[in-house]
């Protein structure tokens, strides 16, 4: 039987960025009361990366598990609602599509909707795919209302996430964690002591000479990977050859455009620019590849297209896409940027933090550190990272752009076998391969495949079993119902006013049809 009930596990979280405080909040809330003694150490002098504003719907489950009140959370983090991401200029200059948090129409006779749509297209009675997705129509009209649990309603076909100030979120979770007994220490770690026998981390030393010991260390120290890399030398799998962007500039500005319930990712000559509207400002950034452009050009490209003057000096960031060879090694579990980095194109970093916390809770060790916990954690988390990686690569690779060297490189690069296979299968049949792990479900893959002009050679032959009349009526009804529902929705800004006035009655976390598990 698990023994450490008499003597709590001592857990030290190293780092107080989004990863550190999400971990502190998750563990302090979900670990048994006397099971662990949780401390967190962070250094104001070093600071956090201070970017990361967009999320995917998973975060609602995380907040719900913590018991966080949505209105309160949104007010304090200046959050807006997010129905998806708009991608501009990715496949061709002038293109725009939205990857929505939701599904297109439902299966008909076990045949997925998009297959019927492909047929309808061939036979000349299809509208744009967007017309069959309520969250896209709503997003294009800057509308937002909450999804419904009633599966007969079009409002049950989507989910949502937030765009928020991650710094404020970390503060929010800090307060939350401290109230649950997490002890925070301010100070810079300057040394790490390893156990000479088994190489485990025994303790860390702070600048003021104090020593912090623990049984389990959670490395949330950001890119530097203070424990997992600097102390344990775990190694890193570099994925830059598939995702060549390695730098970014980030800068906020005042809102001077629409308060969109979605983020925008616009492809540029050697990277892409994000626009993320929050309640009090707009977050902007340019993610680019230093191999294909230089910093000055990248900065200019960003600043020149801002909708208002920059509120701060643009912040410059360096990163290397990839994953630690082991995200859990010995008694160190790395979570957040210390574990690996996937660029923010699909806003997956916070989600991957959350997924890692979930797996850590599943495999939570005791003081014996059975290696099987580490093996299983690394196996499943590795799959999650790889599948998000493949999804991101698809955005770059599925392009017809040949206007810059960067896009030529992306178009021609050899992608991982796992992605090549997925693309081939989709082209042959319109089918998306099923896996148990992997955050993005079929509908997300459809959105990006179609959005980037990857079409199956032909539609599913089984779709022909539905008579043309029936299908035509069905599809017309669906797009009409979507338009009607969208037109009945309030503007995003109005829903936000209600949230801020605490007028929204806290609703349950609805299911997430067609999107994240």
């Amino acid at each position: 039987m698990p023994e450490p009930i008499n003597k709590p596990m001592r857990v030290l979280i190293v780092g107080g960025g989004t990863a550190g405080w999400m971990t502190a909040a998750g563990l302090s809330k979900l670990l048994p009361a006397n099971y662990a003694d949780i401390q967190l150490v962070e250094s104001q002098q070093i600071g956090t990366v201070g970017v990361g504003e967009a999320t995917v719907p998973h975060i609602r489950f995380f907040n719900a598990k913590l018991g966080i009140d949505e209105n309160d959370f949104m007010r304090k983090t200046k959050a807006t609602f997010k129905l998806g991401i708009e991608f501009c200029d990715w496949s061709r200059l002038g293109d725009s599509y939205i990857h929505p948090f939701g599904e297109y129409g439902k299966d008909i006779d076990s045949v997925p909707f998009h297959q019927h749509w492909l047929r309808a297209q061939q036979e000349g009675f299809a509208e744009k795919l967007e017309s069959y997705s309520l969250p896209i129509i709503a997003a294009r009209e800057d509308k937002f209302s909450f999804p419904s649990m009633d599966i007969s309603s079009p409002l049950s076909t989507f989910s949502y996430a937030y765009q928020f100030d991650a710094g404020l979120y970390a503060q929010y979770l800090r307060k939350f964690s401290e109230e649950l007994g997490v002890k925070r220490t301010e100070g810079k770690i300057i040394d790490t002591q390893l156990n000479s026998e088994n190489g485990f981390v025994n303790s860390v030393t702070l600048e003021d000479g104090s020593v912090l010991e623990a049984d389990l260390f959670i490395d949330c120290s950001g890119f530097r990977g203070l424990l997992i890399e600097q102390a344990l030398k775990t190694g890193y799998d570099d994925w830059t050859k598939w995702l060549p962007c390695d730098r970014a500039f980030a800068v906020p500005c005042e809102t001077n455009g629409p308060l969109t319930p979605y983020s925008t990712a616009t492809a540029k000559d050697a990277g892409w620019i994000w626009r993320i509207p929050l309640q009090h400002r707009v977050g902007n950034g340019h993610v680019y590849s230093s191999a294909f452009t230089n910093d000055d050009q990248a900065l200019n490209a960003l600043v020149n297209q801002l909708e208002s003057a920059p509120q701060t000096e643009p912040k410059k960031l360096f990163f290397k896409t990839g994953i630690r060879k082991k995200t859990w090694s010995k008694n160190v579990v790395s979570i957040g940027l210390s574990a690996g980095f996937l660029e923010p194109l699909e806003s997956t970093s916070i989600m991957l933090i959350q997924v890692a916390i979930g797996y850590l809770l599943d495999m939570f060790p005791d003081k014996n550190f059975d290696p099987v916990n580490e093996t299983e954690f690394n196996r499943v988390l590795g799959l999650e990272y790889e599948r998000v990686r493949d999804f991101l690569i698809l955005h770059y690779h599925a392009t017809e752009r040949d206007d810059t060297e960067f896009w030529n490189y992306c178009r021609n690069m050899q992608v991982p076998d796992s992605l090549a296979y997925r693309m081939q299968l989709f082209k042959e049949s319109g089918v998306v391969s099923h896996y148990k792990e992997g955050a993005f479900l079929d509908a997300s893959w459809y959105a990006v495949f179609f959005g980037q002009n990857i079409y199956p050679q032909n539609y599913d032959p089984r779709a022909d079993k539905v008579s043309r009349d029936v299908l035509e009526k069905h599809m017309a009804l669906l797009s009409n119902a979507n338009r009607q529902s969208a037109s009945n929705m309030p503007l995003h800004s109005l829903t936000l006013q209600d949230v801020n006035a605490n007028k929204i009655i806290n609703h349950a976390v609805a299911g997430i049809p067609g999107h994240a598990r």
Partner: protein
Amino acid sequence: MHDNNSKQHIVIVGDGLDAFFTAAALSTNLSKNDYSFSVILHPSNTKTNYDFCDSTQPDPKPLHHSVCLNEDYLVSQAQASFTFGIALSGWNNPRVAYFHPYSSIGAKLDTVAFHHLAMRLRDEGIPVRLANFALSALAAQANRLQRPLPNDRSVLSSCEWGLHINTKTLATLKRKQAEGQGVNFIQASVNTVEIDKNGHIDSLNLDSSNKLKADLFIDCTGQEAKLINALHDKTWISWSEYLPCDKKVSLTINSATSPAAYSFSQAHTAGWIRQLGIQGKTTLSNYFHSAHMSDEQSVSLLSEASNSTSLNDTACEKINFGRRQASWLKNCIAIGTSSVEIDPIGVSRLQLLRSSLSKLAGLFPRKLNSNAVIAEYNRRTNLEFDNARDFAMLHYKLNGRTQDTFWKECRTIELPEVLEYKLKLYQARGHIALYDEEPLQEQSWVNLYDEHGIKARNYNPLVYGFKLDTIKQHMHRIREIMLEGVAKMPTHANYLAQVKNNFNNK
């Protein structure tokens, strides 16, 4: 689509359930305007007892509609009955029995899986039997039955079930359905298979001296694997080192009593007997290892178990458990026994057939020569077959019979890597790792380990977040609701009558 190409012709070779179910499913899915189908009733060269009952298991999700069974119809018109699981006896210990329920066991408390809660109580000296918290086990025990109502959100909706059905009857029905959907049935046998220069099947030479060409050939010839073997003769992966039984003998007898809502799997000194009833009939099959039991012994054991003396046509058959390396090769797909043969202790043959057809229906490409589609079909089916095999083989590996040489040998079986890992994870902390394409869910694995005496050294520490009383109350409440629910269910016999009545009045 109808005009640009001429029709694709699909030939299905075989005379039995595999062929007829395939023909029915494909002709449901594909339009007559674009496809034509023929079934060549190539006789089976193995002695298969067609009058044989098998079971389905809870539908894997999502199951393609064309392989769903119309339960009410089958119960009313084809003597089918419902099943809630499998009663196993003598596996862990000659005198001990347990139930493999198809429904989930208990319910989570917050994020903590039920079996971790049970382990915690056991540490306090409180005995817990997992199946006592599975609705299907409780109902089966009470011989009561009812499928949940569509809108039920209570614990009663956790009920999961399958069907017991006579495969001969089902085959006849599927043939009729296929005929009604335009499938052409041809009485002929395949003499030789001609291969073209690309290694595809070019045509079949029939005994009627006809030559038959087609775009796609589906091999449902069972063990003979007449077509796919012609493409490549070394593609059968034998599982004999994992699944020790190598012979079987079956018998179907009439029975007057109402069938049990579960099947029985009774281990004996050199194998096991499967017993499974439908309305009016029972099939018994003895799976055994020929080195440890003679054919005569095997047949007499079967007659003892069946209380029957009419064993005239019972002959023992060799079985060779295993699967194809790839069930879809070029323009030939092996489906059913030609593709996989499994020891049915965990997952039934009929279940794997339905699941393969469901996968095929979900993937069927317009251009038959689609490499990624073929790879995906093989990936999914192979994973499922191997997961089913792994589950089956644990029954042997983890047996607790100390007297019999057969069973002692079974304990020395070396597990495949993935299974070894799954077992290790469970032993370490009661954790169940499920991979892609698992035919059985967490509860089946937990229950199997638990009933075979595998103790986890540790469990999820989050259990300590709850007071003992909270756990006890949680478990008590689940059981109360389930027992109450079961008490309100009709007996199996009455329920069958009710289903028939409703059906006939429609």
